[in-house]
């Protein structure tokens, strides 16, 4: 198993424990929650009396976050083991091909959400020259989409860790 290792540094042993796996999934949930509440904070602040400007959070600001969350849902719903299933004989119906298409759609939604966050930030806040207390709403939009991406990365890595763990247990 160690002969087909590509990298010089191998993963530390504690990464394969159940504890690290559970902590990774809790962390992914926490990061997603943080993303949602950063965006909710901008919406609540926009309607509060502290916001002296004319700029308000509307549905357009939520749209990138919806796309990022959709992408995260798609990516993490796909069974990762089906990606390498083409080399086996039982995958006659092209499961790996389907998995690649669905994963591509998911990553496209995730990246589109991030790009949409930057777009809203630039078009709604930077170009009209909004001053800084109101500018926070645009910054929070970008931060929220980045946090959704980070959360899905953590979840992805953790789920790949799980396979190694199951393999070690089977031996």
């Amino acid at each position, binding site marked *: 198993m160690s002969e087909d290792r590509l990298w010089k540094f191998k993963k530390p042993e504690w990464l394969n424990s159940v504890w690290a796996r559970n902590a990774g999934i809790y962390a992914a949930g*926490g990061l997603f929650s943080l993303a949602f509440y950063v965006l909710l904070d901008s919406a*609540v602040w926009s309607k509060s009396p502290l916001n002296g400007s004319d700029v308000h959070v509307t549905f357009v600001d939520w749209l990138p976050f919806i796309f990022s969350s959709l992408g995260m849902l798609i990516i993490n719903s796909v069974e990762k083991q089906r990606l390498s299933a083409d080399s086996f004989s039982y995958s006659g119906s092209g499961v790996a091909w389907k998995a690649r298409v669905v994963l591509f759609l998911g990553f496209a939604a995730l990246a589109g959400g991030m790009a949409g966050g930057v777009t809203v930030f630039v078009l709604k806040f930077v170009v009209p020259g909004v001053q800084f207390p109101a500018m926070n709403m645009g910054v929070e939009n970008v931060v929220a989409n980045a946090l959704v991406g980070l959360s899905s990365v953590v979840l992805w890595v953790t789920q790949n860790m799980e396979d190694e763990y199951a393999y070690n247990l089977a031996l």
Partner: protein
Amino acid sequence: MPAAGLKTIIALSFVLAVGFLLVILSCALFHAYYPLLVVATYVIAPIPNWICSHCANPDDFVESSGAAVLDLGRFCTGFLVVMGIALPVILAHAQIIQVPAMIMSVVGGLLIYGTIISFTMFFQEEQEF
């Protein structure tokens, strides 16, 4: 063993009462009752874990669909725990509640959730014997 269990239960219920006191004080002192949502959040936080652990067989490594359900429960629990901290911060940032009320409700909520977690841990440890 019963004496230690009794001491633990008394200490945990004391901590729980202090947590509730902090949250209710943070509401009543400033006449804004939004921080009560923190209590509801932390009470429902262990529920996804509990439901999903009943739905799945954790020993089933072959299909790994049982582990996916468990992961979903953990994800929702992590979401709700961070929600309990993030909600007072949002309310304080929009000046719906005061900053002292935010600090009191966050600390009280963490005490309540810590009580729930340690109570389930002690309870499971007793079950194993």
